[in-house]
Structure formats: structure tokens, C-alpha cells
């Protein structure tokens, strides 16, 4: 299945991940600069961009077979989420649950311990996109979003609205490049004449058209499709969840992704990846086919009556899979049935959300509009007849 693995591991063992200048472990992300900052000596630095460092920017057309980065490996069901880290400073054993955090503080000497090795439970990605939108900015955007949707919002939601509870979450995705070829066939129609005929009181429009057999064949190089690699987040169904909100704040400037360093995650939470390449291959093909159909759509503008595609064939020559974390500010509210998200893209600030509705207000107002409309319509009908 996998033809080539690119090693993206940092080579660092689990444990102390120190400031390169002074050796302190008090390091975190500074969103204003997107850089790591040492809280002891104020030194700022960034990890290397993953694209250039690991050659993920090489031409998509040269991709052959399935190439995966080492952080995107298969998930072993037997892999334990709970890891025991040995503090290299004092020797204590510190337990960290990697499904929730990739750092823990040694309870004896207060050093920060980091999970650096890529584990087979999917918790450590190849790279990540650091937050560049600060928490205050995210709160302001969420507040503004909800403020514009107050009148029909559920009163309990309005009363309990506390945007300061927003959480910075690193969401897991696969970054997919695909070298492919698409073949599409179908039929298209060009209108040649339209005319109306009267029968009694009503008129009907008729159309004449020329029918064409249509085929399109092209190489398609796709760069950086984001695929949800958390099974829970990949399940988008508006009747059962509001995951589409998290999906809708894309795109992310993934070209700026840097190599993984647990210090970027400090103060944020992260959602663990639980899907692997094998589980997402069909969805990857689906995405590439959608892009192919979209591109083919640009070549059929002369078919004014549209095209009915009957076959679409994708030949996959090569794919490259990289596991990354992208930054999302999430405010969530459970209304007893659904968890509503208001989410802010941690890079671009794009905001989208789901606000629970006060149906007790909306339905009567919609009904009044209906009744008034009916009366006006009936009135007009009576006078025009």
C-alpha cells in the first residue's frame, strides 16, 4: 500500500525540549509572531518549514506510488494513548495522556516534558500551522458573529454566552498532493431554438437543441487538499452535528506549516488523529474527482443547456500524505441535543458558526408573514380577476 516513507521525525527523544539558547523548557508559541519564545531568556525562533525541509514542495507531476510522511503512518489499535515520560532533570516518571496533551509538567522539578517521538497512535503529526490569531482577537470575532444573530437566538444560549471560554484547538488533517489523470465522458446540449405555445389560458415554452457527445481527458496535479483525519470531525451531517462549521473556515495557508515541536501546543489542546491513509484513500479519490469535474466544467461553457456526465475515471499515478495540525479557535455550546460550534480560523480569522434558534419566536413571525402574504395575494387576485 505505502511505497515510500519520508522520515520527518525530529530525532529528539521524549522529555525535555529546551530553548536552544539558554536550555530552559519554559517555551511557548507567541501568536503575534508565529514564533516560539523562551520565557526565560526571551529568545524567539521557529521550526523549519516542512515543505522545503522534507522536500514536500517537489513537483506533484513527479509523484509515483503512495508516499507518506512518517507522522502519517498507520494507527495501531494496540498503541497506548497514555505514555510515561522520564524526566531527564530529576528522574521522576510523569504520565501524559497523548490523546489530550503532548506536554506535561514534572510534578517534582517543574520542568516541562514534551512528547517528541512519532507514536503509532496518531498523536504526533509531521508538522503544524502555528496560531497567528491571538485569543483576544478570536473572542472579538466570535462575539461579533453572535451579536449579529441575537434576535432569533435561543434565550438560554444568549444568557449563557461566554466567549472567553473559547479554546485553541489544533485539529488533525492530512495534507494530500495527487498526481493523477482524469477521463470524463457524457452528453451536452446547445439550444438552437425556443418558442412558446398557447393552450387555453396558459403558455408553455419549448426548446430545440443539438446533442453532442462530450469527452475531456487531462492530467491533474492537485496540491494540498486538506482531509479531516479525525473520524469524529470527518463525519459531517447537519442533522447530527455542526462539524461543517469547522470545515467551512478553510482554507488554511498550509504552505507555512512548520515541523512539529510540542512547544507550539503549549496552552492549546489538540485533537488526536484516528484515521490513517488506508481509511481515507477512497475519500481522497472522491476529492480529486470533484476537482477534476470542477476543472472540466470550465471547458464546457458552450453547452448552455448543461452537460450530463456519464462516466468519470481517475488514474492515480502518485499521492503524498503529510499529517498536520491546523489551528482553530472553537467556542462550543451544547443545547441538550446538538453541540453548536462557533469557530475561527487560527490563521486567517475567518469565522463561521451555528447559533441555536429560538423557534418560539421564529415560527410565529414566519406564520404572520405567511398570513399577511396570503391576505395580500388573495386581495390582489380578487381585484385583478
Amino acid at each position, binding site marked *: 500500500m505505502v511505497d515510500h516513507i519520508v522520515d520527518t521525525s525530529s530525532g529528539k527523544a521524549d522529555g525535555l525540549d529546551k530553548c536552544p539558547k539558554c536550555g530552559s523548557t519554559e517555551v511557548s508559541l507567541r501568536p503575534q509572531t508565529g514564533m516560539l519564545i523562551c520565557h526565560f531568556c526571551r529568545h524567539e525562533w521557529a521550526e523549519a518549514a516542512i515543505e522545503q525541509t522534507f522536500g514536500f514542495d517537489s513537483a506533484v507531476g513527479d509523484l509515483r506510488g503512495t508516499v507518506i510522511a512518517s507522522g502519517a503512518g498507520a494507527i495501531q489499535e494496540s498503541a497506548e494513548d497514555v505514555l510515561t515520560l522520564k524526566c531527564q532533570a530529576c528522574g521522576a516518571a510523569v504520565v501524559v495522556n497523548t490523546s489530550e496533551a503532548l506536554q506535561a509538567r514534572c510534578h517534582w522539578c517543574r520542568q516541562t516534558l514534551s512528547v517528541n517521538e512519532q507514536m503509532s497512535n496518531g498523536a504526533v503529526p509531521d508538522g503544524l500551522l502555528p496560531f497567528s490569531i491571538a485569543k483576544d482577537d478570536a473572542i472579538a470575532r466570535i462575539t461579533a458573529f453572535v451579536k449579529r444573530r441575537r434576535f432569533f437566538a435561543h434565550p438560554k444560549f444568549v444568557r449563557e454566552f461566554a466567549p472567553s471560554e473559547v479554546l485553541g484547538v489544533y485539529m488533525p488533517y492530512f495534507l494530500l498532493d495527487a498526481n493523477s489523470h482524469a477521463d470524463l465522458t457524457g452528453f451536452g446540449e446547445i439550444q438552437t431554438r425556443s418558442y412558446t405555445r398557447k393552450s387555453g389560458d396558459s403558455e408553455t415554452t*419549448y426548446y430545440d437543441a443539438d446533442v453532442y457527445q462530450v469527452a475531456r481527458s487531462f492530467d491533474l496535479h492537485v*496540491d494540498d487538499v486538506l482531509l479531516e483525519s479525525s473520524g469524529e470531525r470527518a463525519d459531517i451531517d447537519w442533522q447530527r452535528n455542526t462539524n461543517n462549521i469547522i470545515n467551512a473556515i*478553510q482554507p488554511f495557508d498550509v504552505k507555512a506549516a512548520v515541523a512539529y515541536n510540542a512547544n507550539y501546543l503549549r496552552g492549546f489542546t489538540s485533537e488526536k488523529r484516528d484515521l490513517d491513509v488506508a481509511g481515507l484513500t477512497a475519500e481522497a479519490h472522491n476529492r480529486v474527482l470533484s476537482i477534476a469535474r470542477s476543472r472540466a466544467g470550465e471547458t464546457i461553457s458552450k453547452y448552455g*443547456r448543461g452537460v450530463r*456526465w456519464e462516466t468519470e475515471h481517475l488514474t492515480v499515478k502518485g499521492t503524498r500524505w503529510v499529517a498536520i495540525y491546523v489551528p482553530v479557535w472553537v467556542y462550543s455550546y451544547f443545547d441538550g441535543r446538538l453541540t453548536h460550534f462557533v469557530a475561527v480560523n487560527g490563521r486567517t480569522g475567518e469565522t463561521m*458558526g451555528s447559533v441555536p434558534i429560538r423557534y418560539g419566536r421564529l415560527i410565529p413571525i414566519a406564520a404572520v408573514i405567511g398570513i399577511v*402574504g396570503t391576505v395580500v395575494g388573495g386581495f390582489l387576485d380578487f381585484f385583478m380577476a
Partner: protein
Amino acid sequence: MYLMHSLLTHPFAVQLLSYLQDDYMYGSEEGGPWLWLLGPLGGTGFFMWVFLRYRNTDKRHAFERETANEVLDLKVYDQKTGEVTGTTDAHIRGRNSNSPRTRLGSGSTVTILAPEPPQPSQGQSED
């Protein structure tokens, strides 16, 4: 609420609405039954508008348009095969060119090519 949303987005409802619209556009000038639909359509339309503005259930990332990609070596084939006359459909039957995310059932197929075995390196010298 959810039922109402489902009903309005159901293909049958969409079809019905397009007929009503046709009736509106080409209907007689002496008024007619469509005037009586002004109210029900106004009420449900307002409900739908508020629902989507608050819940944003229709929002998705348009990856098919926003993902960077490159088309190379495009080959096109367009051959006239016949004519249709006197149809009342404004579009080709079964039009799907405006829904690129919808797959074609058994018409959608994928082949995965195995990578070629690595070529023996040539022309490399030690010096």
C-alpha cells in the same frame, strides 16, 4: 423544524418551486392561483432564510474550486450526435455539470498505478 428544512430541500420541492416560478414568469396577467402562494412561500422563505443565517447548515469549504491544482495536456472531444426538439426542459435531462461533488455511481471508477520499479542509476561516477 428539521422536517420542514428537509421538505424544502427535497428534490420534489425544488421541482415544485421551479414550476411555480415558471407559472409566475409566464402566467396570465389576470392574476391567478399563484397569488395565493405569496403567503405560504413568503413565510417558509423567511423561515429558511433565518434558519440558514443562524445555523449555517449549508456552509462547506468549496475545496473543488479553492484547492491549488494544475491541468495539463487537455484533450477535448465534442461530436454532434443528434437533436432534440420540442422539449419543455430548460436543461439537458440529468444535468450534473453543476454538481461536481456528486459521483456518478457505477460511472465513477479509479485505477491506482503501481510505481515503476526504480531505474538503475546511470552515468554516475565516483569522482
